[in-house]
């Protein structure tokens, strides 16, 4: 299930951690975007909405938007308001740009058009980031530094994963300049200071844009799940930057559960998700030796995915909270690893799924799920 362009733009924008996102949409879209974000961080309420109702649809939403802009500017102490115009204003043709230009506010305002029906969540993410790149400043290059591109603030395990990747890179002599999109406006603006952009799964349009605009080269990598995925990431970055670092990892924790892992060899599993799914499937397949029966992306036909899983021997499902139903129907466990996760929290930022530590945590989670199920 794909959230459409609006969700992608919302996720990219709310990744500017001190920005306030003003959604110009009916209440339902706003609620959906908000709830997926606040599950694991209930203080993060940096978003407002014009709450378009029937009246705004019939008479146009421009007045409501103007009022919301003024109020948001009063209520929030923020350097920037990011207005995202979703489906409804796009259908009825609200002139969002004109409204934005008609008000003078304390906060900087940037707006973007992101009608859900005009593209996938991925498209929305890519376009929003490229649009936001207009905020970036030419900066002096910081040697051996990288930007990590592809994150959203509501990704499951995002804090822990970023922390782990930063740790690994620091060990390799590489500093992380900006995490996109999960950084302050200041950090976002100085992204061009990085020596290299590392695209983890999505955000390649921004990387391409930054290459042309600021001359920052980029590397496209898979999301670093497992020992292999992690090693590939750190090696590629070291090589690109010429830091000459050899990654080392600790397989001690895996030895402790070797017998379980041995038993689980060949377990049939299925997986669905955004770009994370591809990397996860590789980890499950190559490192744990599972049999990946059905591997699907969000944009694929969901019905087909369900049919595929039903007609397979799948005993563990990997996905998002949306897969609850099918997991329940088939009476198999679901391991949530991918957006949106709204029925689990992840608040501990030292239990990642990415990186070496992530490989341990994931393995632990999988074994425990299997042992306690049924």
């Amino acid at each position, binding site marked *: 299930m794909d959230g459409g362009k609006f969700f992608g733009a919302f996720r990219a924008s709310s990744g500017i951690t001190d920005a306030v996102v003003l959604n110009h949409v009916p209440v339902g879209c706003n609620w959906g975007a908000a709830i997926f974000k606040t599950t694991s961080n209930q203080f993060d309420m940096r978003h407002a909405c014009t709450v378009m109702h*029937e*009246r705004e649809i019939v*008479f146009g939403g421009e007045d409501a938007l103007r009022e919301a802009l003024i109020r948001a500017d009063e209520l929030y102490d923020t350097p920037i308001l990011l207005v995202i115009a979703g489906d409804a204003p796009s259908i*009825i043709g609200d002139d969002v740009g004109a409204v934005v230009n008609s008000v003078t506010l304390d906060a900087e305002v940037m707006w973007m058009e992101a009608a859900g029906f005009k593209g996938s969540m991925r498209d929305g993410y890519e376009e929003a980031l490229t649009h936001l790149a207009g905020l970036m400043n030419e900066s002096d290059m910081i040697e051996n530094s990288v930007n990590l591109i592809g994150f959203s603030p509501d990704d499951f395990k995002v804090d822990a994963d970023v922390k782990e990747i930063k740790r690994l890179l620091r060990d390799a002599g590489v500093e992380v300049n900006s995490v996109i999109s999960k950084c302050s406006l200041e950090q976002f603006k100085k992204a061009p200071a990085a020596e290299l952009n590392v695209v983890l799964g999505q955000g390649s349009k921004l990387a391409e844009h930054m290459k042309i605009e600021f001359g920052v080269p980029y590397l496209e990598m898979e999301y670093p799940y497992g020992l292999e995925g992690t090693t590939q990431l750190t090696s590629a970055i070291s090589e690109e930057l010429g830091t000459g670092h050899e990654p080392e990892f600790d397989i001690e924790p895996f030895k402790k559960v070797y017998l379980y892992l041995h038993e689980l060899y060949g377990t049939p599993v299925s997986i669905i998700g955004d770009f994370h799914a591809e990397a996860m499937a590789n980890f499950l397949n190559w490192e744990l030796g599972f049999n990946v029966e059905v591997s699907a992306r969000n944009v694929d036909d969901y019905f087909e995915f369900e049919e595929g899983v039903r007609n397979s021997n799948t005993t563990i499902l990997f996905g998002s909270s949306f897969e609850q139903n099918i997991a329940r129907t088939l009476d198999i466990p679901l391991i949530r690893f991918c957006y949106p996760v709204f029925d689990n929290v992840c608040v501990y930022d030292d239990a990642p799924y990415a990186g070496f530590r992530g490989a341990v945590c994931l393995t632990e989670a999988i074994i425990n799920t299997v042992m306690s199920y049924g």
Partner: protein
Amino acid sequence: MRKFCVYGKGGIGKSTIVSNIAAALAENGETIMVMGCDPKSDMTRNLVGKRLPTVLDLFRTEGPDRMKLDDVVFKGFNGVHCIEAGGPEPGVGCAGRGVITAVDMLDRIGVFDDIKPDTVIYDVLGDVVCGGFAMPLRQGLADDVYIVTTCDPMAIYAANNICKCIKRFADRGAVTLGGIIYNGRSVVDEPSIIDGFAARLGTKVLGRVPMSILIPRAELHRKTVIEYVPDSEIADTFRYLATAICENEDRVMPDPLSDDELDGINEEIEVLLREREETGSNLTGDV
């Protein structure tokens, strides 16, 4: 309850015809209700003598819950109950959604149950530009449709499009075509062409409204001709038309013409036009 709607190209005479037949029907002591489904909201002007506050005006200022029947239904000439749906300012919002909202609102405040009209007439914006303006074509709102056309290619083309729209809703067991109303205010006033067009659609012409200077004159006084010149021939024309529609029992699912067939009609009109220009005869017929 008899319910029908009047469609037709923009500026073709829909509002004139609806307001006049409403006034005519009301002469017989029946309870008549008219609803203008056009953001211009000008149909009831000739019945009430002024522009009315619209359903959507109220929806906008008061919200849906505080709306009362008396705020949106006004009695006009001969006691005709007049309603204007209203809509957004030109260039903003979604007028089609407005029609849907207005109809919903009227339903909510129970207009039909309260007034119990014998006849309800809808006057709908010129071209059926989107789903909202097809709202009166759905079952329950109207029984049948009457299309106004002059003898102009573009008006005929629009009428044909409306027939396509009626047909689209056909499988939902909805509204049918009641007939064509011919307005003689045409480039060439040739009723036989419209008779032929109607026949091909599978229907007939229910009435002919000649070009008449009394219509704009009455309009200047914000009146229907029924009120302004009750004893005139043109007033009688509207009376006949009103009766013809109310008594009409022939309803059909129209068979819209192909582009080639429409081109054929276009040529007929062109030939006539050239002939009349050559003979210098009155193009639009006698006033």
